[in-house]
């Protein structure tokens, strides 16, 4: 290195040192100034502002130590941190809690969908608490799941997976919409009117929302008749419910073609249910019966609950676990066959099979939970 070059490097280092020195001087002046404001102010200051001032002071001291050791990069790093803490304290000293509540939330994009989901969850909670309406265990559980989806979507977003987060948030919003519609039907009046915005949903998501509306109108028409549903109609309504659940899985997976297929299948189930309802002359045929309307439980729901229970038993090492699982599987098989026989019009066989489903279920329960030998006890 030539003399000129050495001079140039020495000059540049000196300039850098002078620049950092003045940065540190400014920093210490500002810290002193803010501390003076805190000490002389009449208003109590937010604890977080004081914490930032303390951290700014600590980082300044670290920066100074690094400066003395001539590690200018580290010195700059600490100075930068101290400046950020100082600015955070400055904003907080000028702010109040009430003004911080006016922070605006995003209206579009994944953050907008999440904001709408959180508002919809709270609106539903408020309406349920205020109206003291009937809330089935299934709907309650569903609301808990939707809330969990909100948290899951936030975690996905935090991990940089914004498409997946959008899918999860949309799925939560649509699932909640479905539960609210069901809640209103169960209680025979509007509990809460969730107005979903087109901005929050994809084109297919919006079509799914419209499907839920059509399903609700269809169910409402059936309920308005005030008579039990013909079994075949119930089967197709359950089919529409299942198509919706499958569609929600597609929303989570961002599977547009799967979603379209589920929508088509669900719409077909609804149309078939309506046609069957009209052609069965339900109002005349069931005129003499006064039993409350009951849509038949779907076998897939029963089987899904059996599967959950089996997993639970496997994981908890319940006594007689293998036998319990065998009996549960048998019960699920009988239940499904009973529904098939019922749909085929063989009520005697359906009755026999549903009884068998009960006997095996009860036997499994005794094996799992009782210390006495299990016995087949009739329904």
């Amino acid at each position, binding site marked *: 290195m030539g003399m000129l070059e050495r001079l140039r490097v020495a000059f540049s280092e000196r300039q850098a040192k002078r620049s950092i020195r003045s940065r540190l001087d400014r920093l210490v002046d500002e810290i002193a100034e803010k501390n003076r404001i805190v000490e002389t102010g009449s208003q109590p200051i937010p604890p*977080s502002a004081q914490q930032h001032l303390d951290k700014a002071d600590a980082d300044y001291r670290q920066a100074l130590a690094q400066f003395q050791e001539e590690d200018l990069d580290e010195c700059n790093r600490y100075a930068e*941190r101290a400046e*950020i803490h100082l*600015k*955070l*304290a*400055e*904003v*907080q000293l000028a*702010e109040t*809690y009430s*003004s*911080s*509540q006016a*922070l605006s*939330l*995003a209206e579009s994009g994944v*953050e907008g969908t*999440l*904001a709408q989901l*959180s508002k919809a969850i*709270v609106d539903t*909670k*408020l309406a*349920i*608490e*205020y109206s003291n309406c009937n809330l089935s*265990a299934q709907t309650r559980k569903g*609301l*808990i799941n939707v*809330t*969990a989806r*909100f*948290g899951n979507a*936030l975690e996905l977003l*935090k991990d940089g997976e914004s498409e997946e987060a959008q899918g999860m948030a949309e799925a939560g919003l649509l699932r909640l919409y479905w539960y609210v519609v069901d809640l209103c039907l169960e209680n025979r009046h509007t509990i809460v009117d969730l107005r979903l915005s087109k901005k929050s949903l994809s084109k297919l998501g919006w079509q799914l929302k419209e499907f839920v509306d059509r399903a609700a109108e269809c169910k409402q028409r059936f309920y308005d008749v005030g008579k039990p549903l013909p079994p075949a109609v119930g089967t197709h309504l359950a089919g529409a419910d299942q198509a919706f659940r499958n569609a929600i899985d597609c929303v989570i997976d961002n599977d547009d073609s799967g979603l379209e297929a589920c929508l088509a299948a669900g719409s077909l189930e609804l149309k078939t249910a309506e046609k069957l309802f009209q052609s069965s002359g339900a109002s005349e045929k069931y005129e003499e019966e006064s039993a409350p309307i*009951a849509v*038949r*439980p779907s076998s897939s*729901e*029963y089987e899904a*609950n*059996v599967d*959950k*229970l089996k997993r*639970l038993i496997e994981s*908890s090492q*319940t006594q007689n676990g293998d036998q319990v699982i065998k009996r549960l599987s048998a019960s699920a098989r009988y*239940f499904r066959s009973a*529904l098939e026989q019922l749909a085929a019009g063989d009520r*005697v066989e359906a*009755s026999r099979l549903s*009884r068998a*489903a*009960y006997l095996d*279920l009860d036997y*499994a*329960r005794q094996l799992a*939970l009782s210390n006495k030998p299990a016995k087949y006890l009739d*329904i």
Partner: protein
Amino acid sequence: MANTQDRKAVAIARMAKIELFLSGLASEHEAAADYHRNMIVEECISKGKKDLLRARKVLFAGQIEECMTVLEIALLRTNFGKQILEADAVEHILGESDYLELVEAPVPQEALIAYYFFQLEREVVKLYSQFKDEAPKT
């Protein structure tokens, strides 16, 4: 460069406000604990604090856009907790205190197994009751 500095200033201002919002929520939650301790709000507060810590770390590292995303997450969480707390306050003021909990309380596994058996039994009895009068028992 100027644009980066502007974005950084926006991020700092937003972080300061969200932090204040969150600490206000924590104080309100403590005050409300006299009548109800909501687990969702607790979770919002603890996760919100972690979000803010992460936002600060990425800001120190100069990753301003990531910082803005994490701040939005912290805001969504805090806002959700705030709304839930307000809903609980309304229920308390109305004197009912029948809170709808939106989180599954930890349940012992045996109780959970018994619960599932109960649910399944209800379903199967519901099905059987449709034809209990017409089927001969053998």
